[in-house]
């Protein structure tokens, strides 16, 4: 049965079984391959996308439950916070293998959209669901702080 999904601002009619996780719809039906498969059971965060502004694991979210939501994948991130995070990621050379990084960027962007001046504890809380086997954690933390400085200073100056 067809499901109507809104992904990165576009409507897509997807004809798959309702129990198919959104992850596989995004990756295999829509060829948005930035969102990654790492564990399939909400343990690693590689499959994270924003759903109505919330960082969400798509490997355990069915397509049926995704209908009517505003879905934003790594390819569709556009907020100033996303741009700041991605700029910091390149500048600090955060990614190594990169496989976890779409999920990291989505989680970090979501954190920054909600909290423009996160503490170390805020970062640990928001990011500990995203595993990085390459151990880029110190640079992720530094990247979030670098990106946050932009908003915090801007807000402070305003």
């Amino acid at each position, binding site marked *: 049965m067809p499901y109507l999904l809104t992904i990165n601002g576009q409507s897509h009619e997807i004809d798959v079984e309702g129990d198919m996780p959104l992850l596989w719809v995004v990756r295999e039906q829509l060829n948005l391959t930035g969102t990654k498969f*790492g564990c399939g*059971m909400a343990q690693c965060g590689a499959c994270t996308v924003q759903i109505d502004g919330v960082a969400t694991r798509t490997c355990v979210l069915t397509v049926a439950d995704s209908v009517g939501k505003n879905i934003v994948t790594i390819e569709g991130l556009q907020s100033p916070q996303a741009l700041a995070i991605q700029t910091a*990621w390149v500048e600090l050379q955060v990614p190594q293998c990169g496989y976890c990084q779409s999920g990291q960027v989505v989680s970090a962007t979501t954190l920054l959209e909600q909290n423009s001046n996160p503490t170390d504890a805020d970062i640990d809380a928001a990011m*500990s669901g995203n595993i990085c086997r390459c151990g880029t954690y110190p640079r992720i933390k530094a990247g979030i702080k670098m990106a946050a400085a932009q908003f915090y200073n801007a807000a402070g100056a305003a």
Partner: protein
Amino acid sequence: MNINRFLKSAAGHQTVDNSRRSFLKVSAGTSAGLMLGVSFNGSALAQSAATDAALELNAFVSITPDNVVKVLIKHLEMGQGVYTGLATCIAEEMDAAWSQVECEHAPANTARYANLLMGQQGTGGSTAIANSFMQMRQAGAAARSMLVSAAAAQWQVPASEITVSNGILTHGARSATFGELAIAAAQQPSPDAESLSLKTPAEFKLIGQENTLRKDVGKHNGAAIYTQDVKLPGMLTAVVAHSPRFGGKVKSFDAGAALARHGVRQVFEIDSGIAVLATDYWSATKGRELLSIEWDDSAAETRGTADILQQYRGLVDTAGAVAESHGDAEQTLAQSADVTELVFEYPYLAHAQMEPMNCVAQVNGTSAEMWYGCQSASGDQAAIAQLLGTGIEHVKINTVFAGGGFGRRANPVSDYVLEAVRIARQVQGTPVKLVWSREDDMQAGYYRPAYVHKLSASQDANGKPAAIQIRVAGQSIMAGTSLGAMMISNGIDITSVEGLSDMSYDIPERQVELHSTQVGIPVQWWRSVGHTHTAFSKEVFIDALARKAGADPVAYRLELLKNNPRETAVLQLAAEKAGWGTTQLPAGWGRGVAVHTSFGSTVAEIVDVSVQGNNFKVERVVAAIDCGIAVNPSIVRAQVESAIAYGLSAALADEVTLTAGNVDQTNFHTYRVLRMNAMPSVETHIVPSTNPPSGVGEPGTPPIAPAVANALAAVTGRTFTRLPLKLA
């Protein structure tokens, strides 16, 4: 390039570790003929498939008319930064602008793209920069020379009067970009290696610079392509039901329900289990759940890890094959009234790289085309060719980024690669993407083996170790592989004892013995190989001896490293930067140290831990590394951070156990790995050096676990001899 010269320079390096020595021996011995044929030019017969021959300056460099310097990377980019590192060496000698450089993976072609320390095309042993530092620079210098010759001919001026900088050639008022001279340069004869003059370290503009951005781009925005992302017309996705026990075989199976499922196209038996092919991954996994399979376990490993470790504990009480012997340690220990003895235990470890194993294969009769993160090009290509009864020239490998490796993607028997080919050849002409779930990956074996070590030592009147005896029991990762003949001699797999048999501490009498065990659990190298366990035993044991001698752990080590200026300097740098002995720690905190040399590089790490009840947290790591010339300091630091995180994960949590032959762990909820909240701050200091580059990807891993254990010992007064570390 002249391999003899390379060997000389590498061997003349202050400390060349054992595995490096073995690789050199391998290269010099069995593959010398092949090695001599390798240069930046590649063999005349072997044309690169990946670039336009008209634009090719040599095996590694092409320039396009739109001014892109395209560099072919002979190693797998799996996060270690090899795209950036190799391209830096080329761009340096070419005087290219960094912004005009683009990288792509070279095809599988041993004649052109061998790892000069291995004699075959492959990535591992932290050798990517070490083996190609001179080769890449010569490739860059040769390309520069061809550009200059082309300009000299066009402008009718002497080549010696042309200058090159930032991708522009200049003579007086005339100038040209690389792109403008691309076609003319490619037609110039390739210069003789001996005629090229390379820069001195003082002349480097890119090598050693901080701000060279990485060339493995598209990883911040989801654009980078991994095996998992490869999609070909008509492609099917395959999953495989593997035997729950290693060595189990299919006795019978019923595919009826699976075949009836929407999306499932085919189900058939292959060597390693039952393959389910479907239009998409979800349908394939759902189909697999509907299989009913009866397994034949008559040849399977049915022991659990408890039984296996029990056996090893018995083994280390008996004499093993002698790997290293000086003096008569056994006799001295027998006569000593006070012997310190510790037994260490190490679990099996999964690599748990972020991208579970996968591979795309298309087979047409006796030819195959592959798409995957290929870490062992020569080995995989030969294995595929053998399986298909064809020549390696009929096996084309397209390498894409790997979502981590840590050793796993270079499987000694090409396990996941051949599984993909076995499936693809049953559906001739159809591309097949083999995808392992996390559970498949976790339970497929090829683990870092479990080991038990027993270390015994006596001390002289000053507390210095007088004699040491070390016994190691565990599986050989080289036995039964194509590398076995090279890496095992007289019953000793050097990778089982490396780090112990060649330890730097000056101990007059020492004996290292090995029991290589037969267990039906597939094993493989894991980031830093033997050093993953040997460094722990060595460094925790030395700390225990220092405590017994009432000595400071750093001072005690320095005393034993008097003949090793390199380890001394690295240890002193780390101690100074960490404030060893000079800064006060809060109550409940402890500080520990470890220093170890592996893959030609020395790393010292100093760790602060805080202990609360039965819990502890690693708060801070200060590391110092001597890796020769740091081609890209930011990547060196990133690799040290990464190596620490990877080793710390094993120190704190990683452990594969088996019960009656079944792997107990399935996914990240049971195989727990390091997360952000347990990551300490890491500060890395690089020892300035003009020595040739040595390993960077692995040497940061070995010292972390013992440094943490020693820090815990400083707080608790207890000695920790089992990984992962637990206070209670």
